[in-house]
């Protein structure tokens, strides 16, 4: 037996819903959506934001450590030879976005030759990565991911490096002032 034209449920109680049931379910669904949205904004969103900020801070740390090694005044990894070998002897800011470092090679002459036998290291942002290129060896390393831009400013006795990282909709600009050795 089907539902009568008056909406009674005589003879069959399992087909369709009553208006009151639909309303009740709607109210409960509304409450559930409110709870979920509250939970997301209270915990889910901060959680994803924290993950993004963690990621950027880690990448920025990697960039900082790499710059700290090169700005100590000697070419990282070239630990053999005289102390003059591998010493930082020149620095160039190209276009405000490329950092060129020149390390003295054997035989050392104490000046930046920007070519053999010196080693030239270049920091720049390429395809959302901060890369460190070794022009002598031809190697390129990704120093930090999620890099949006690197802005360089000459400061006389050093260089100011403003590295902007972006992950999803969060951007952070980290400021490093590297003093010349």
């Amino acid at each position, binding site marked *: 037996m089907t539902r009568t034209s008056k909406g009674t449920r005589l003879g069959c109680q399992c087909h369709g819903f009553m208006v009151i049931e639909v309303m009740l379910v709607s109210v409960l669904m509304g409450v559930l959506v409110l709870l979920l949205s509250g939970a997301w904004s209270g915990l889910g969103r901060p959680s994803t934001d924290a993950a993004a900020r963690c990621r950027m801070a880690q990448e920025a740390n990697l960039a900082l450590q790499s710059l700290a090694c090169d700005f*100590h005044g000697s070419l990282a990894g070239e630990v053999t030879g005289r102390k003059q070998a591998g010493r930082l002897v020149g620095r160039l800011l190209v276009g405000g976005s490329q950092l060129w470092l020149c390390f003295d090679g054997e035989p050392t002459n104490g000046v930046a030759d920007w070519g053999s036998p010196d080693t030239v290291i270049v920091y720049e942002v390429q395809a959302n990565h901060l890369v460190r290129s070794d022009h002598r060896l031809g190697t390129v390393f990704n120093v930090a991911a999620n890099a949006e831009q690197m802005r360089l400013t000459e400061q006389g006795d050093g260089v100011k490096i403003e590295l902007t990282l972006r992950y999803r909709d969060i951007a952070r600009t980290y400021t490093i002032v590297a*003093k010349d050795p």
Partner: protein
Amino acid sequence: MRNQHLNHSLRTGFSLLELQVALILFGIAFAGLIPLVVMQSKQLKKIEGRFHHQTTYYLVPTANPWAGKLGAAASVTTEAPASGAPPPVMVIDDGDPGYTESGYGWSSSKRDEAFHQKLRKNVNGNGSAKAHWQFAGLEAGWYEVLVTWAAKDSQASDAPYTIYDGQLAKGTVRVNQTVKPAGKSFDGLGWKSLGLFAIQGDTLLVELSDQADGMVVADGVRIARVENEVRVLSLDKSLTREEVTAHVLVTVRVPQ
């Protein structure tokens, strides 16, 4: 059969108990997020504390070149480092800061073959007239002292230069100023080496006296730090030990 059909047909929605159970399950799942958020928040605080985007960080190299050579990184600080002391002056001409005279009789002269085309001169005397070149702010160590002058026949053949470590005389060397200084060449001029001198303090003073057999000429004095050459042949590092073993070759250049 009839009862089953009746029970089935009576289930029109969910009971309050079922709703409560569902909410409790939701709460448990929701609470599961809390440790994750707490962990991430702590991790974030730790990492951002190390390198925060609202703070300016300074990379400061140490003054020891060997530290950089052997792989140390620049120190990271949040305070702007004080400007380092300017490098010490290693060449002093007559008339430059660091050059002084005592006694009477000093006069200027211009000659093309002099350092910067000028010099100071004095007739020979009893040693009361002196010229001084003072190099300050030096690191202790061995220094080679070199002097230059414009040669002339009428000048002293035994002009006495005395080298002092602060107040302590380290020795006197007499030079023949009638002939051009021979030895190393700087700025297109010959420079005669007076020798190597060990300096314990931070000041090296060169003094020229007029106690000679002719006119004495005070011109340029240059000093150069002399060090043994150390070449690192290999470096042994271990993840389990803090010590680093370096195998080096030392070429001795200073008196031992």
